[in-house]
């Protein structure tokens, strides 16, 4: 197990390096410069470029960046003069992480519940309602949900704050719901399909022949076995959430990392783009690692070992 995790961490570092390198060169292909004020005199522009090391050849900039990154220095922002990238990210990471985690937990748990209900009551109205709900949740983009929730729940009924991040938990409720719709719908579809399969399997019939009632069978045998493929989609769903949060954070004017990411790209704020990309990549690979470890706990047939397959 420990050998397995160590090996995976090695791959994680390699992935981060590759992503950082690719992003660095792609970023250099972006049109424009960070300092595109037309009123800026040529000598000052040159001075700015020299200050940030942008006058050097690209390969040198690349090596400089890597050297800094290895030592924990991700540079300073061009837009927010003098602000360290690491500080910019860490000061804004909180709301995003909270939203992402809440949406993930709410989405997968409700999705598992909804999918299981649909499977148990297959071909009844329960199944139909759950299916419609899942299709809507999957096909309607989260910014539509965000706008609808804002308009009805917050503006018309005045139950929860319309936007901003000033009322603690209650500020997070509406964006969490908007974000959770997609993972909820995804999980529900996967759960239903798998559970229908599991419920018709031999070991469920054997459990019934032991005297388990319909609900005991579900709780003791069907749920856990149906959750195996659901674990698989947690990784991709985490990506969806990271991307989705950029838009939703914008709509609710939440000072999160997503909003920052969009802003940094439109202003060619190289160090911030780099820092955020590496951070997203890091979170994603960690999520995938956690998912793989989770597999072993849910399904005893998957044994984690250090050997390459």
């Amino acid at each position, binding site marked *: 197990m420990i050998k397995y995790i160590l090996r995976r961490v090695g791959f994680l570092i390699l992935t981060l390096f590759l992503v950082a390198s690719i992003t660095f060169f792609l970023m250099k292909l972006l049109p424009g410069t960070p300092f595109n004020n037309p009123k800026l005199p040529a000598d000052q522009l040159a001075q700015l470029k020299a200050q940030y090391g942008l006058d050097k050849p690209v390969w040198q900039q690349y090596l400089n960046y890597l050297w800094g990154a290895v030592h924990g220095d991700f540079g300073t922002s061009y837009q927010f003069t003098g602000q360290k990238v690491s500080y910019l990210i860490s000061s804004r990471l909180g709301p995003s992480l909270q939203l992402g985690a809440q949406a993930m937990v709410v989405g997968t748990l409700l999705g598992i519940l909804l999918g299981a209900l649909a499977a148990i009551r297959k071909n009844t109205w329960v199944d139909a309602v759950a299916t419609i709900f899942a299709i809507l949740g999957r096909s309607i983009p989260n910014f539509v949900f965000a706008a609808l929730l804002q308009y009805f729940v917050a503006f018309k009924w005045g139950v929860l704050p319309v936007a901003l991040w000033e009322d603690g938990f209650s500020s997070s409720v509406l964006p969490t719901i908007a974000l959770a719709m997609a993972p909820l719908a995804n999980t529900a579809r996967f759960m239903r399909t798998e559970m229908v399969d599991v419920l018709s*399997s*031999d*070991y469920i*019939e*054997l459990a019934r022949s*032991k*005297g388990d009632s319909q609900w*005991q069978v579900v709780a003791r045998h069907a749920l*856990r076995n149906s959750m195996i493929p659901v674990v698989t989609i947690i990784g991709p769903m985490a990506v969806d959430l990271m991307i989705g949060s950029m838009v939703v954070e914008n709509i609710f004017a939440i000072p999160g990392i997503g909003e920052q990411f969009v802003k940094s790209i439109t202003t060619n704020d190289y160090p911030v783009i780099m820092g955020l990309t590496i951070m997203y990549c890091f979170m994603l690979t960690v999520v995938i690692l956690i998912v793989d470890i989770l597999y072993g706990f849910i399904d005893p*047939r998957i044994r984690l070992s250090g050997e390459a397959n």
Partner: protein
Amino acid sequence: MERILEVKDLAIDFATYAGTVHAIRHVDFHLDKGETLAIVGESGSGKSVTMRTVMGLLANNARVVSGSVKLAGEDILHKSEKALNQMRGNEVAMIFQDPMTSLDPTMPIGKQVAEPLLLHTKATRAHAMKEAARVLALVGIPDAQARLKDYPHQFSGGQRQRIVIAIAIINHPKLLIADEPTTALDVTVQAQIVHLLKDIQAKLDTAIIFITHDLGVVAGIADRVAVMYAGKIIEYGTVDEIFYNPMHPYTWGLLEAMPTLSATRKRLFAIPGTPPDLLTPPQGDAFAPRNPYAMKIDQEQEPPFFAVSKTHAAATWLLHPDAPAVDPPAEIKRRKQIWAQKEGNHDYR
């Protein structure tokens, strides 16, 4: 003899998109304490549906058209779901065909074996686990106590079937239904499992219904045999009667299709044709289209049971007093000769 199971005039339909399938068409049989009844027949003959009815585990689209099923005197067709849950795994238990898929892959086997005990008795968890280890040892799992926490994938196919048997017998059921328990196993392992079932029967005095399409296995375990075809029992009798004095041409076909050491034929015999479509069961004898001995009346009228002995009867017009004498296949003649020698004075047709 204590009567464990009494099935009378059982008829079951299935509603499908194509129409109503008459899966079981008026079946009668019974079983006494400690007895083994083998139900033989090809796929789709209604063996498993009959047994699922006894377990109260019929699919939602099934409908009991007529008949009664009495387990130890109690009618189970009209029991509530709750009463059925109390019955299953306690009074009647089932062993399934494929041990590779009939255990929960994500639950340790100790827990799975102990489950019926926890469901039906007031046993504590600790006691149930101890009991599980004892029963696992009884069915021949070596070092059972140490293996309680192991998962099904850590056992071989034969061992898994032993575990399934342990689950079935932990509550000492009156009736054990084995639905083709040896079909998915190697021949050597088959013999071990049959031996184990007989052993358990001797120890617990359980009645066993053994569903199979393998006549070879039947000879080794059963006291009596019922042959099913197209949703009906068409012949029943003691093992010797079915094996050495069969009367129904379908039973002849089954026995002929069984490989024997004395076989002279180069190719193994197969009954020609396929079973009838039970959406529209044929008017006369369902086996008539595949039966080389079929007469005109077979096409028109369903044969009733004709008694051969107190324990033996077959539903074929060939047994009618007016029927012409027919010449059975060579293999059946050979068997009937053995029967005649055994019985001494028995007439053989």
